[in-house]
Structures are given as C-alpha cells and as structure tokens.
C-alpha cells in the first residue's frame, strides 16, 4: 500500500486547491478500498431494497389499470419502475455518503484536514469522492434492477443523461447535507431533516425527466427541459455549498 502524501512539510501554499482536492480524493479512495464503509453500507442497503421491491411488486405483474383517457395500461409500468429505482438510489446515497464527513470527525482527522488544506479543497475532494462512489453504485445497481424488474431504458440517450445528471446532483445534495450533519450531535435525524427540502425538489425534477424517457417526442426541448432542470439544480447546490462551505467547516 502506498502512502498518501500530504503537503504537510511545506505548508499548504505550494499546492493549488485542485491538487489538494485530488490528494484528498486519493486518500478517500484508499481508505475506502481498505475499509469499504461506504460501499458496504450502500451495497447491503441497495441489495436489500432491490430484493424487497422485486418481491413486493410481484403481485402487480400483469395488472391493468385504466388511465384518464380510458385505455388499459399496465399498473407496474416503466415510469413506476424508474421512480422506485430513484427512491432506492436516493436512500442508498444517504445511507452511504453520510459517513464521509462523520468519519473525519470520529477519527479525529478533521483537524488535520483543516490544517493542511483550505475549505474549498476539502469540499471539492469530498464531492469528487462521493460522486465517484455514487456513480459506481448506480452503475452496479441500475442493470441489476433492470434485469430484476424488467424495466425498459426507453429513449437510450435520455436514459443515460438522466441517470448521470441525476446521480451527480444527488451526490452534490448528499455531500453538503453530510457536511452539515457531521457538525451536529444527533447526526442521523438532522441528516434527514436538512436534506428533505433539497431532496424533494431534486426528486421531482428527476421524476419529470424519467417520465420523459418513455414518451416519444419530436421536439428536443421536451427532452432538454427536465434535463436542464436536474443539471442546473446540481450546479446551484454545488455553487452555494462551495460559497458557504467554510462556515460549516471552520466554525
């Protein structure tokens, strides 16, 4: 195992914040490969929910319901499956990523980080790590889910765009909420409470976009509108968090 080098000897000024962020990212990846805290939490959680959803929805297979124009449509349709996939990813993100800052506080390494890099670098590094982990998890979970529930991808480019932008935005929300929660005493409850308003908006935006995967449309605006929403919400959260992060980090 290689040692992770910090800029401890020469102070923090000889490295740009990007280098510092990358160093933190490498350190987190290394720590993750050793302990597998985030992956373990997310993996067990996702697999359990995956199995639960697959079993719970067996009863809905082949059931038809009438929609508002009187046509019979399957009750357990692609949009419904997509919604549950996002619920699953959302909980997985919050189960796994909540540890990213708590871990630093618990092991007492938060002060070390504060000494050696600026708050921007810490935020960028953690965001990069969380996004990578969540992308990896969703890369494993999504195909499994699609096989187990028989979910269609619909319009393929749209599907990939939704999954990618949705996962990135989700990790941006989870990162800033994790940072907030790590500073509080009762981390668990606060995590949910603070995250809820941000998460609700994000999930509504994602559901909109997900529905569009299964609607054929000629105009590109129909596809772009919900996607822009997700991406811009992610940008909004990242910008705000980057601006305000040092108030959380250096109290």
């Amino acid at each position, binding site marked *: 195992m290689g040692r992770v080098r910090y800029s401890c000897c020469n102070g923090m000024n000889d490295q740009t914040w990007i280098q510092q962020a990358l160093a933190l990212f490498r350190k987190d990846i290394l720590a993750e490969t050793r302990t597998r805290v985030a992956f373990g939490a997310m993996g067990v959680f996702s697999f359990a929910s995956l199995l639960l959803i697959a079993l719970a929805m067996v009863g809905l297979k082949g059931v038809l319901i009438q929609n508002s124009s*009187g046509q019979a449509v399957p009750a357990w349709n692609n949009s419904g499956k997509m919604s549950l996939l996002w619920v699953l990813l959302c909980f997985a993100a919050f189960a796994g990523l909540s540890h990213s800052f708590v871990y630093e506080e618990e092991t007492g390494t938060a002060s070390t980080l504060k000494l050696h890099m600026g708050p921007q670098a810490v935020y960028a590094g953690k965001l990069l790590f969380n996004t990578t982990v969540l992308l990896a998890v969703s890369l494993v979970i999504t195909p499994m889910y699609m096989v187990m529930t028989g979910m269609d991808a619909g319009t393929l480019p749209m599907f990939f765009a939704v999954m990618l932008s949705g996962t990135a935005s989700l990790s941006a929300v989870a990162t800033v909420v994790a940072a907030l929660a790590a500073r509080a005493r009762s981390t668990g409850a606060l995590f949910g409470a603070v995250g809820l308003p941000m998460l609700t908006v994000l999930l509504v935006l994602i559901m909109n976009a997900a529905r569009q995967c299964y609607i054929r449309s000629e105009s590109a605006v129909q596809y772009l509108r*919900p996607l822009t929403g997700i991406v811009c919400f992610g940008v909004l959260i990242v*910008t705000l968090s980057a601006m305000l992060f040092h108030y959380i980090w250096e109290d």
Partner: protein
Amino acid sequence: MNRSVIVALIVISTAMGFTMWAFSSSMTPYVDIHQAEKLTGQVQIRGKIMHSTAHWSDRKHALVFMLKDKNNDLVEVDYHGAKPEAFDTAPETAAQGVLTKASDGKLILNSDSMVVKCPSKYSDKKGLKNDTSANSAAENRI
C-alpha cells in the same frame, strides 16, 4: 465585492432560473375553462358542481357531471376514479385532468384527480359567502 462572489451570484441566479423553468412543468396551473381551451396538457379547473347532471356512465366508465366555473362557462367532467365521499354534498370541486374535444365539438375534461370542497357548516345560517381559502391549499399542487 470581490469578483468571485459576483460570478457565483450570476451562476446561482442563472441556475435557479433554469431550475424553476423545469420545475414549473410539474405544476398543474389553476385555470378557468376559457383559458383551459388554449392549453394542452394537465390543467386544474375549479367550479360549482351541477348536481342535477351528475351520473355514472357505464359506457365511459366514469362519473360524469357538468362543472360551472366563475365565468359561468360549463364543461363536462369525466371523472375516472372512485367517487369522493363528500361529492354529493360538496358545492364546489377542483378537477384535474386533460381537456379534450369530443367529435361533436363538446369540451370534456378527462379527469383522474379531483378535490371536493366540504360543505360549510356555518355559511348557510349566517348567510356568509363561502370563502375559497380552503381550496387555496390545493393550489399549484405538484
């Protein structure tokens, strides 16, 4: 003010604008019948239930009734779903659905979601006007 803050504020306001733009598509606007004719997609129309016209249509498999909005325009509502408990006594309702034109040119609101207003216990005796604030909570429902 330093430059990075200004850049950040510009980014934030732009991103917020686009987010609102995308988010607004998930809201169902409250409109009257006249406006609803011009819109495609989901709308929500609030108005008085014409109880004498309400009946169950076996052919359409729906609860059919006429709805009179505040401009006294009439629209037929085909409500696909279980009849709300308070429907028979409810003076008003807000029906959500898609407005379609039948082959004979009649407007039909194909609805699958409806909020009925509870009859007021007090307004009849005291002769107060029904206040509509009870319905405002349901406004702009996601």
